[in-house]
């Protein structure tokens, strides 16, 4: 067989695959509409900045001082004063029912303790099941109470003629500066991640069906009977879906840049290259499952198992990989979304270059070659 023959065969397969795809316009439209809808939805909905925390107040002191303190607590607008309770039972009930996440409890001795100079305490009862917000809400309350304390201290020091002291103590201070997301909006972090997740999920699912479908329908027979080599079939099946995938990536990234104003500080070429490799790898997973299981139901279940849930939870999309147990960090090495996510975030948010992203790129390349190779090998076995 000459090279021309092989090229002709591959082109024939490509034509057939493209025709299949366009014959099902609903799937095609869905393939482009879904990513857009999802990005819009999550871009607006996913926001884990602490904006509102419902807080209840249990003020047993009811003094001018306690009112001042509470004024400081609710001054920032992040903590919302939504209800008042007057006993421990009421406080517990409010927390169990979820009406409030935190209860600020000012004990009856508050003003007295302040006046005596002994140091007063305020209790904050937090619903520990409210997730990361428990910790953050606590931090907000502590911060505003500390600010109240600081104003008290300044007044006292000024009265003693030591008003320059607050600027000198403590003698060590931290001067923080934030890079890459100065406004500290969680959206800037989530959206690049979403690009990766959305595309990844669709990728594997699309291909997981295609070969299994042929096995189930019996249309695989003519392919087996033909003089086609397995790698030509794999190539022919992957290319059309990868093109669709690249279209999805472009669409979704443009949306992120121009609608959500997520920055793009790095190289487009690097981004495109990584996206291409990622798509090939993910689709090859679906293809491999297809070939191995020959059953659409099973292929789909396995594709879901291996792509959606791990990609969501172990890739670093929501939770940082570094804070996971070692075993999981090792498992995440085989989740391709992890590398793609790292590259997307690096390129878009930090302007990282080829050298910085080299380890991730290498892993992705290795992964892609491995899986595509496995596809060809398994398909050869099936055909034999």
């Amino acid at each position, binding site marked *: 067989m000459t090279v021309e023959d092989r090229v002709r065969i591959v082109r024939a397969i490509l034509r057939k695959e493209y025709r299949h795809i366009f014959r099902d316009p609903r799937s095609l439209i869905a393939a482009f509409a*879904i990513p857009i809808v999802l990005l819009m939805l999550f871009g607006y909905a996913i926001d884990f900045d602490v904006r509102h925390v419902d807080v209840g107040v249990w003020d047993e002191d009811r003094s001018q001082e306690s009112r001042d303190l509470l004024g400081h607590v609710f001054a920032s607008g992040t903590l919302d004063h939504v209800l008042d309770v007057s006993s421990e039972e009421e406080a517990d009930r409010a927390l169990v029912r979820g009406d409030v996440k935190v209860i600020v409890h000012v004990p009856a001795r508050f003003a007295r303790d302040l006046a005596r100079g002994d140091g007063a305490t305020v209790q904050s009862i937090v619903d520990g099941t409210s997730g990361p917000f428990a910790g953050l809400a606590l931090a907000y309350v502590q911060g505003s*109470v500390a600010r109240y304390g600081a104003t008290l201290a300044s007044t006292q020091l000024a009265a003693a003629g030591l008003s320059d002291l607050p600027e000198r103590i403590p003698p060590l201070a931290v001067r923080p500066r934030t890079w890459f997301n100065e406004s500290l909006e969680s959206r800037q972090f989530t959206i690049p991640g979403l690009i990766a997740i959305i595309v990844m999920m669709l990728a594997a699912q699309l291909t997981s069906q295609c070969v299994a479908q042929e096995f189930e329908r019996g249309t695989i027979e003519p392919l087996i009977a033909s003089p086609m080599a397995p790698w030509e079939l794999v190539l022919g099946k992957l290319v059309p879906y990868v093109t669709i995938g690249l279209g999805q990536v472009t669409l979704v990234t443009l949306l992120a840049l121009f609608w959500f104003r997520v920055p793009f500080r790095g190289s487009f070429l690097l981004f495109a290259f990584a996206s291409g490799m990622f798509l090939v790898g993910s689709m090859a997973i679906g293809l491999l499952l297809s070939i191995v299981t020959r059953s659409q139901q099973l292929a789909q279940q396995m594709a879901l198992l291996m792509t959606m849930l791990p990609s969501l939870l172990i890739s670093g999309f929501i939770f940082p990989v570094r804070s996971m147990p070692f075993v999981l960090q090792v498992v995440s090495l085989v989740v391709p979304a992890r590398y793609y996510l790292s590259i997307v975030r690096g390129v878009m948010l930090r302007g990282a270059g080829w050298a910085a992203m080299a380890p991730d790129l290498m892993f992705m390349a290795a992964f892609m070659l491995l899986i595509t190779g496995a596809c060809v090998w398994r398909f050869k076995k099936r055909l034999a």
Partner: protein
Amino acid sequence: MISGRRLAAVARKEFIQLFRDRRMLPMLFIAPVVQLTLLGYAANYDLKAVTLGIVDQNRSAMSRRLVDAIDQSQTFEITEYDRPEALESGLISGRIEAALEIPPDLDRVGESGDRASIALLLDGSNSNRALATRGQIESIVLREALPLTDLVLRQRGLEGVEVKAPVTVVPKILFNPTLESRVFMVPGVLAMVLTVITTTLTAMAIVKERERGTIEQIGVTPIRASEWILGKMAPFIGVALADVVLVTAVALFWFHVPLRGSFVLLTFLSMCYITTTLGLGLLISSLSSTQQQAMLTALMILLPINLLSGIFYPIENMPRAIRGFSLLMPLRYFGIALRSVFLKGGDLSSLWDEAAAMLAIGIVTLAFAIMRSRRGFR
């Protein structure tokens, strides 16, 4: 009238068919357990293993003490660099998430009475992590600064004056005293795993028969549409219940998540929830003509359901329109109910509105799905 005998016959056939492919068994029973185990470990918001780069331009006993204090907090993975420029490239490449520059005059601060400032550079990409890192570093530095504060005060003749914060906050944390995120994430992950399995199973079920043409064969039997559909779902209900027991066992005995409420209530709530996922899967089935479409539709619906359910991201933060929409999502109620039953010891009286919402949505979805399927049946 629905004939119990015909329904039972269909259910038996479905059981046999489902388990005929032995490879499905691990998918149905082992996969949820594996998923919960993996994801239960992955899901955590705790501040750990923050990569921190430090440039110590002072190299005195005091600066070493500061670096030690940071190291001992067990929160950071410290790498020391020689030059501040290296910190920059570390941040850009992502090798470090935060960088600390200790100024050369750190240890002379006591004498001059001036304030020394330590520059902290934060990678703001993950904003909550950045904020938490800043808080940690600030509190460590504050602690280390206390002896210096005494020094300054002594210089001013204020010896022995204890600088104390006038007001301190004493936290009391209910239900999860260690604030371990795993404890509240596991019930949520449980709900998610159940959702994915039951919805996708049901979604593929009817489409498969439609693709194969076996629906027409059923059509010539006296079996009615409702009997056929309910019988079809029978094995899935069984699988789902078994999964509830299995993953709850993992949550209790592996993750040591407390179950402060009753197991019976847990099962009841799960049943209420399963009616909704079965209904949803059925609806997807009736809307699709090929398995590929069913799968794509299921995926398109499952991703928003999981991410907007309030399990990973707070519903309070979402725009009002989406928040309203989430009222229609059974997973939202199931997530709340599970957390309450596991961690707060919630009972039926505090959860009846969640149960009612799920049942209502489930029955409506099922009825609607059955009506739609009936049309394609005859």
